[in-house]
């Protein structure tokens, strides 16, 4: 393809990179990366990787060709089991310790941009795991660290965008939080190289993960059906319901002589007991706590209608149709229930407006009865002692509503970690693919996570048990390792369920993750069907802008309405007021918003 038509292609498929994450700040910043700068970026970066540009920009997922691998290169296979291997439990599925040989002479030095991290990694170029990887693979890498998070913890790609704009491209980005929409867009524009064929030839470990977890293959794909990212996955059991889990203070529960509630009316009685008997003895008991960061609707509404995690924006799937739940009659019933709690004096405005700090302070004072929180640490400071307040919180399973609805805010979506993205400046992408693949091996994974084998972590002895009571695989001698020994979670990892369960856990003093698992089990039984859950979606660039804009008006409106209806500032029992709420959503373009999700649902590769 000639250069002019390439430019045409770029112009056709790219204007601005906009996130689909609804992060207004980020969207604002990214719009500065306009089509023109994008062109300048790719042009000044040199027309090195012409092959990738031939890809053009067809967004048609139609019939994606099966990647065939690189011609005339023998397919790399999994290495032999390492002589220094752990004992695996019988049904172990996940990374295994294997022997691999260095595959590069280190003649070419590659540059990778990584997130700055002084708590764990320290200086990337002198880090212990960096050295270990160099010895293991032979690949010489120069790391350039960039701060990629804002002070609020959200992704901040200002500097990355400036670098791309200036054509100051590295060979790859590792762990830079590009959104799926950006990866898709930059991939189609030729900034990132497609890795499908390279994976078939050079990535035996990743191919094994594809086999173990069939969801991953589709998840890595962009809208055009190609794979631009080499990505980590984490099969985190307790994360699946964390955005909708509630906790109850066990001692308070016993003090008021109650048992775990099973219906919404039981819950009301429990809150009333908390209020009247004040088991905290402070005179300022908070029967139920939630807040801006931990919304209460993801828990309570699931007793009336299926309500997903906050990032799903109240969207669920019914027979392949994306539907919005926050304007349904069942939703109204849920609001009525909240209102009745308010009328009984059991909740106040703090349930909707408390900040994480305020909730933590109340919790540390022992004043919280029921708390909606991601984990116990948001209700009380986590300490080493299992007798402190944080350890007194146990999961409060979902309660059954008057119509018999009893669901959990469960998500079966793949939980992925950081990506490796190889740019069109890289002349030997096969080295980086293989380099990333080596990180998926178990020893490498443990070294990055926990530091040095023998001093910081080691294989479990035969007979030691893991979280589920089976043979354990590994344990941490010293955690976290000293700064500069590992990369923490900034490597390419495969935290399969077996791997996570494989950490040594003393049955008498269970590991923290075991507590979280126990808090998740009652929720799993009540999870909605997988087909009804909204999968991870990629919006195309136009839709991503629209989605972000609509999200900024609709989400705050619904959130505000929940609080106002619950606190009696709007009368939930007045049909006119309710109709006004529904019609305002219509005016805000709820139909179009749902349509965007439907299109993304239909086009995202799976």
């Amino acid at each position, binding site marked *: 393809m000639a250069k002019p038509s390439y430019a045409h292609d770029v112009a056709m498929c790219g204007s601005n990179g906009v996130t689909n994450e609804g992060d207004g700040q980020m969207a604002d910043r990214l719009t500065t990366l306009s089509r023109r700068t994008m062109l300048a970026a790719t042009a000044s970066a040199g027309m090195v990787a012409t092959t990738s540009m031939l890809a053009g920009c067809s967004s048609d997922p139609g019939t994606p060709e099966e990647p065939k691998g690189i011609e005339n290169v023998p397919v790399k296979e999994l290495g032999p089991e390492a002589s220094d291997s752990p004992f695996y439990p019988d049904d172990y599925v996940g990374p295994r310790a294997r022997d691999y040989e260095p595959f590069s002479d280190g003649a070419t030095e590659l540059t990778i941009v990584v997130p700055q991290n002084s*708590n*764990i990694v320290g200086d990337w170029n002198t880090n212990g795991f960096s050295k270990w990887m160099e010895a293991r693979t032979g690949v010489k890498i120069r790391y350039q660290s960039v701060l990629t998070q804002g002070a609020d*913890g959200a992704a901040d790609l200002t500097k990355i965008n*400036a670098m791309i704009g200036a054509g100051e491209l590295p060979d790859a980005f590792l762990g830079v939080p590009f959104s799926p929409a950006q990866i898709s867009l930059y991939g189609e524009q030729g900034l990132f190289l497609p890795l499908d064929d390279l994976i078939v030839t050079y990535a035996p470990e990743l191919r094994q993960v594809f086999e173990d977890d069939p969801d991953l293959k589709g998840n890595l794909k962009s809208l055009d059906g190609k794979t631009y990212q080499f990505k980590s996955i984490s099969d*985190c059991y307790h994360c699946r319901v964390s955005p909708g889990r509630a906790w109850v203070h066990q001692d308070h529960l016993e003090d008021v002589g109650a048992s775990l509630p099973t219906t919404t009316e039981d819950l009301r009685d429990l809150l009333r007991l908390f209020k009247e008997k004040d088991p905290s003895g402070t005179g300022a008991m908070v029967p139920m706590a939630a807040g801006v960061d931990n919304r209460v609707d993801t828990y309570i509404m699931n007793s009336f209608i299926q309500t997903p995690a906050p990032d799903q924006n109240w969207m669920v799937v019914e027979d392949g149709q994306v539907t919005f739940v926050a304007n349904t009659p069942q939703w109204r019933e849920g609001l009525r229930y909240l209102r009745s709690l308010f009328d009984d004096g059991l909740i106040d405005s703090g349930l909707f407006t408390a900040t994480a700090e305020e909730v933590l302070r109340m919790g540390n004072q022992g004043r919280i009865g029921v708390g909606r929180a991601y*984990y116990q*640490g948001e209700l009380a400071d986590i300490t080493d002692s299992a007798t402190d307040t944080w350890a007194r919180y146990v999961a409060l399973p979902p309660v059954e509503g008057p119509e018999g609805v009893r669901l959990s805010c469960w998500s079966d979506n793949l939980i992925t970690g950081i990506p490796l993205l190889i740019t069109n400046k890289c002349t030997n992408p096969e080295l980086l693919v293989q380099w990333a693949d080596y990180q998926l091996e178990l020893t490498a994974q443990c070294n990055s*996570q926990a530091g040095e084998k023998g001093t910081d972590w080691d294989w479990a002895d035969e007979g030691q048990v893991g979280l589920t009571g089976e043979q354990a695989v590994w344990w941490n001698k010293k955690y976290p390792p000293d700064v500069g020994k590992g990369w923490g979670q900034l490597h390419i990892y495969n935290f399969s369920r077996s791997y996570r369960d494989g950490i040594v856990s003393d049955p008498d003093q269970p590991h923290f993750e075991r507590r979280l698992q126990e808090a998740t089990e009652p929720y799993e039984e009540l999870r909605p069907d997988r087909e009804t859950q909204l999968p991870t979606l990629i919006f195309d660039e136009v839709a991503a802008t629209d989605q972000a804009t609509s999200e900024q008006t609709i989400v705050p409106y619904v959130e505000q309405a929940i609080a106002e209806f619950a606190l009696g500032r709007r009368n939930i029992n007045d049909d006119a007021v309710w109709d006004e709420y529904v019609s305002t959503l219509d005016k805000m373009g709820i139909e179009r918003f749902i349509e965007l999700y439907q299109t993304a649902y239909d086009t995202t590769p799976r």
Partner: protein
Amino acid sequence: MSRPATTTRITSSRPGARIGDTKIDRAYSRVNYLVLAVFSLMVIYPLTFVLSASLSEPEALTRGDVWLWPVGVNLEAYAAIFDSPQLVRGFLNSVGYTVSGALLGTVLTMLAGYVLAREELPFRRMLTLFCLVPALLSAGIIPTYLVVYNLGLINTPLAVILPGAMSVFNVLITRTFYQMNVPLEIHEAARVDGANEFAFFLRIAVPLSKPIIAVNLLFYGVTQWNSWFNAYLYLNDQDLFPLQLVLREVLTQSQIDPSQLAGADLGELVAQRELFDKLKYAMIVVAMIPPLIAYPFVQKHFVKGALIGAVK
């Protein structure tokens, strides 16, 4: 009955009584003091709280026990800061950037402001306008980055000091200052005495402009001390980072991303939170100290200079 009343009247209308001590004036003073006291409290309270918090134990902080005075006084946080090579280096870097940024900015501003104040300068209005345009319309991040990149300044201390070294706002203040305080007549007198342009500037204009020098030094110094964005954008080497950027990174990493919460992370989580709770307030105090020390020295010039410059 009537006597005392008469006496009072006489007393109050005696010619020697202080003027302006009427009821309304007293009420005015009272309101004035009240408003000022409220303002002072609004300024002093956060400072006191931060100082107390930095000296308190972390547990007391998260329990919400600290509201004015420290609870469980200890200096651990400060010890931790001085143990951290990163923070100490950041502090020293910041001092370097601040001193050089303040000096360079002040010199450039004095030169530009003085020249723009001289009425015989050809195209004076156009030049002023020329300065104003980029001040009002900024080119944006990527073009600026390209300029810095192509000048080869990326990852050098100059990238922190040079972009935005001179503020047009300060130039305008300085220009007005010279217009008001160094009139044409002095210039003519100096010419008669044989001073050339340079001699006039160095020996007459500069000595006359101590207040505006103080204002500029303070403005540029504080701006540079508080800034992190240039460093964030243009520096890669952590050894060059100013304190504010180091603080920002610590702040960023104290934010726990719940989706990254794995069992293996508990230790990390606890360690991070403890570190953060311990360091946060102490770092704010450390970052606050230099401007607090510098301010009293320039304060007497500051009020005068900023005010004169502000009047057109």
